[in-house]
């Protein structure tokens, strides 16, 4: 590598990891990180958890103190958007007209919120949640007795509902599907979370499609459903999924198919360009197929794999995906992917308790777990999934058998 060194587009979780790992792997050349947000890389999970709740400040959300980048010899170009990648000249063009040359380029542009395209979408008081700025906007409505409608019963929407409820806000969650978190968990888990939220006083309405927002004086006051129902509100938080930021790559002719296509080491179809994090689509050997994941673990591990590759090592990323969500006193930990499971085995009592696990088996082989306040089940399952362990469902469900013994049939 010569004088231009590594340029990273995006300044989020994967980008920060790449800088750290490039240096620990011994890379000594220049690094430039270009991000369109004003802050250096920060963690997003607290944005719908402790940071939204006001329990921690931004100093505990940022990934590294700003001085880190200087001491690591990484030039930070913040509030700067990359407008194009010019592969023939090996440079990126910024929105403000600068040309930045690279020897190797890492695309770590993450994802953006999916916007809701219904009348009234631009009324004041309709918010999304992706950035620190969004949190401040949402918090400005946190007054006891205020009415919040959350559009979308995914994990972000439900986390916001839990925090808002704790702040004395009246919360209604509207979900189009017939159950919450339908995209990620089994009905057993959905039913459990609906019970918990209702017990906490949150109104959960499933099978409700939002058709529009209505307001007065430019501010939202009602959410209207396709079924003709009207839900009064002072503010709205929309959480209906994300879209990977792949346009830059696609416009530059890099292969994109549901994410920027990379191999286990983060290489794209251009040998000088790598991608990591939410924007990428990688092969997973454990499941034998390609995945596009939206998780911190994925961003960190891909950041590490790219850094290793750039320093001439091979450290392919091939792990069991995992994720967590905090709502009230409940920690949900998900390992693996349940897609295509043939049997769900419950350990514990989701109907009455606040702690249980659901194991997903595909033809007897463990492929995933959803664990609520159940660290042993989560930790053990993570190991067993990687080994394609075939498990006896009756032993899995039997709480008198310790998780460490479950696999020893």
């Amino acid at each position: 590598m010569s004088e231009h060194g590594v340029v990273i587009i995006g300044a989020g979780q994967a980008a920060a990891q790449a800088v750290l790992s490039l240096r620990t792997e011994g890379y000594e050349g220049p690094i430039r990180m270009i991000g369109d947000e004003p802050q250096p890389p920060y963690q997003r999970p607290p944005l719908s958890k402790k940071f939204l709740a006001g329990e921690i400040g931004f100093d505990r959300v940022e990934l590294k103190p700003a001085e880190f980048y200087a001491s690591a010899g990484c030039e930070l170009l913040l509030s700067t958007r990359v407008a194009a990648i010019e592969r023939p000249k090996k440079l990126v063009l910024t929105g403000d007209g600068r040309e930045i040359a690279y020897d190797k380029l890492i695309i770590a542009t993450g994802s953006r919120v999916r916007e809701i395209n219904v009348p009234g979408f631009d009324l004041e008081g309709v918010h999304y949640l992706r950035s620190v700025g969004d949190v401040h906007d949402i918090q400005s409505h946190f007054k006891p007795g205020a009415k919040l409608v959350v559009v979308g019963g995914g994990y972000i929407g439900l986390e916001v509902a839990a925090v808002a409820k704790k702040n004395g806000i009246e919360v209604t969650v509207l979900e189009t599907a017939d159950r919450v978190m339908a995209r990620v968990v089994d009905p057993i888990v959905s039913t459990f979370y609906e019970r918990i939220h209702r017990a906490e006083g949150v109104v959960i309405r499933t099978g409700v499609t939002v058709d529009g927002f209505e307001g007065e004086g430019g501010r939202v006051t009602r959410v209207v459903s396709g079924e003709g129902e009207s839900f009064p509100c002072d503010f709205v938080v929309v959480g209906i999924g994300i879209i990977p930021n792949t346009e830059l790559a696609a416009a530059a002719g890099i292969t994109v198919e549901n994410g920027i296509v990379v191999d286990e080491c983060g290489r794209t179809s251009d040998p000088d360009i790598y991608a990591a994090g939410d924007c990428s689509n990688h092969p997973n050997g454990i499941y034998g197929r390609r995945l596009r994941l939206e998780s911190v673990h994925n961003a960190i591990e891909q950041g590490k794999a790219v850094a290793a590759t750039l320093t001439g090592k091979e450290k392919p990323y091939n792990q069991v995906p995992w994720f967590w969500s905090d709502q009230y006193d409940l920690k949900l930990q998900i390992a693996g992917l349940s897609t295509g499971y043939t049997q769900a085995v419950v350990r514990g009592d989701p109907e009455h308790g606040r702690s249980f696990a659901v194991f997903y088996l595909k033809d007897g082989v463990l492929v995933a777990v959803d664990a609520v306040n159940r660290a042993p089940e989560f930790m053990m399952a993570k190991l067993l999934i990687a080994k394609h362990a075939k498990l006896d469902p009756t032993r899995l469900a039997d709480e008198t058998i310790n998780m460490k013994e479950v696999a020893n049939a």
Partner: protein
Amino acid sequence: MTKVTYVEHDGKEHTIEVAEGLTLMEGAVKNMVPGIDADCGGACACATCMVYVPEEWLAKLPAKEDMEETMLDFCEHSQPNSRLSCQIKATKNLDGIRVTMPESQH
């Protein structure tokens, strides 16, 4: 400020003044001490922030909550003196504490 000495697996030491209220995990991560990955940022969800605490300091630490206890129970390099550093806040009575990092957090 609480003085914390982090000892890498190979014996290399890092002594850091950690602001009170921050966790020992944050003290390490924010000061580029290698050996603590802390993937989940302190949510007690990942168990990649494990440290070993010497006998004389163990008793001064607040007791483990269930979640920490059970996560540790299933960690690869876990020992009886293991703790998750994201669950330990820097306080005055921990001034001078030494913790050791495992060879790897996976």
